[in-house]
């Protein structure tokens, strides 16, 4: 996929997305919402796919669980990938399925060598089933977890080395995690292996309703924060243009407002593209 900017696609915006003439625009969806047997949702996604590149951004393969990915879920995901031929497939460094129950969130874990071996096995299984590499996203952190044996970037790089997977760098997650854990977002981004990055995510966050700005939540319910834009510009200046998504899941504005944010990312991407030309 060309390194242009795309948008999360929600059913409320199907008509406008389908008709969007924006140059190089692409759309990303959570495949879990499309793992159905038929009906208008799938028909809409196929119509979008016929005009624009589509990326599938999974939230539920639960790669960091001490268990294999659910075979039924993986089979349905494989069928959707076959049908939609997405430009990119991505997932999270997190778990959510555990002992037959789905916890609709992206849950954390201690980055141990045991976890790395388990996740590498799971990523390998998914890539074998889908017959393509997937990109793994860096998580948002809220908790200080004891017993990490690995630094997160080293962990992601080792995962990529072992499995051939790619990485999805979510700049908002880096900002939120750095704030919550008292780390440097700049240092994290500067150390991230740019050659492995297939996609970048930008999203809005919000202060926790109970704890206030001391705890930022990766809520995807607001425009991208100015501080995150600054980090994004710094990243792209270092690693070059990458497909970039404006991610919005909640408190959905009109399609025009999202397109305007997308245009801003597109402008950042144009600078290194022009340099390369």
């Amino acid at each position: 996929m060309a390194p242009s900017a795309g948008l999360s696609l929600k059913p409320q915006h199907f008509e406008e997305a389908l008709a969007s003439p924006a140059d190089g625009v692409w759309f990303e969806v959570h495949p879990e919402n499309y793992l159905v047997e038929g009906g208008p949702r799938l028909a809409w996604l196929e119509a979008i796919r016929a005009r624009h590149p589509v990326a599938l951004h999974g939230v539920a393969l639960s790669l960091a669980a001490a268990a294999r990915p659910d075979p039924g879920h993986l089979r349905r995901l494989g069928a959707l990938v076959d049908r939609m031929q997405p430009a990119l497939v991505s997932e999270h460094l997190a778990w959510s399925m555990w002992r037959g129950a789905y916890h609709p969130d992206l849950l954390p874990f201690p980055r141990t060598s045991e976890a790395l071996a388990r996740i590498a096995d799971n990523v390998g299984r998914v890539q074998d089933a889908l017959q393509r590499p997937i990109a793994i996203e860096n998580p948002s952190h809220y908790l200080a977890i004891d017993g990490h044996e690995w630094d997160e970037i080293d962990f992601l790089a080792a995962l990529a080395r072992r499995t051939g997977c790619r990485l999805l760098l979510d700049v908002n997650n880096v900002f939120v995690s750095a704030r919550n854990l008292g780390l440097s977002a700049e240092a994290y981004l500067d150390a991230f292996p740019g050659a492995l990055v297939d996609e970048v995510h930008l999203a809005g966050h919000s202060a926790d309703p109970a704890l206030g700005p001391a705890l930022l939540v990766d809520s995807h319910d607001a425009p991208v924060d100015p501080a995150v834009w600054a980090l994004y510009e710094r990243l792209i200046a270092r690693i070059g243009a990458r497909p970039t998504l404006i991610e919005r899941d909640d408190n959905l504005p009109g399609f025009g407002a999202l397109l305007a944010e997308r245009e801003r990312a597109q402008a950042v991407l144009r600078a290194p593209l022009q340099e390369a030309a």
Partner: protein
Amino acid sequence: MTGAHITRVTHAPGRLQRFQDGFARALLAEDCAAAGLAPEVARLAAQPAFAVYRNTVMKGCIDALQANYPSVARLVGEEWFRAAAAIYARANLPRHPTLADYGADFADFLAAFAPAADLPYLAGVARLDRFWTEAHTARDEAPPGVAAVARLAPGELARTVLRPHASARWAWFDAQPIVTIWRRNRYPEGADDGEIAWRGEGVLVVRPGAAVEHVELDAAACAFLEACSASRTLADAAAAALAVSAETDLARLMARLLDAGAFGHMDLLPHEPEECPR
């Protein structure tokens, strides 16, 4: 012999598994301090930020239920609905991540839910919301044209098996006007707000094309569809409808069902073997 090639087999759960068992328990515990968590997880659950995970998991479940049961939510109000949904979710986390399918047995939960005892129609309304979801996500299927059915000779018609459409769901509610209550809450814009006649009602919810539609059915029509779904012939289905109501106008019933897109696959059975000369 050295031990170099012997793989040590251990049945002790790994650290990651123990972590996830504890974390999953802490997510749903009413009181984390009293849940007897392992120290590693207890230290996490004691951090104020742990509430982000607890809240996100519950909000994800409750939002999904509210999206899947909008008529129930409108009837009881958002606050009551979300409180009931939280009780359901705590005991019934989703079994898989396609949340459009979450809460398949929410109607049964409401039927047994003591605070809903004075709303005896609530479970029926939930059942119709579930019908809507199932119709919306069912396999696509082109209904047979009315003309294809009209072309059948009377003898062939009797031997035809018309299977209900892949998206078709129907129910007869003997004692309550569930369909009217459901319709007024599922499609509130412009809904008639006149007094509701307290009587039995039936409905077919189906998606013959792009949109989910519904038509009211009487008990005989529901019996007819029931026979069709058991792969019985139209002759048998007609007998089932007549057994419910001897006054059933079969031509009208068929026309209504065909017009609604109630049918999918059509089969013409061969003559009964005993009718064949040997």
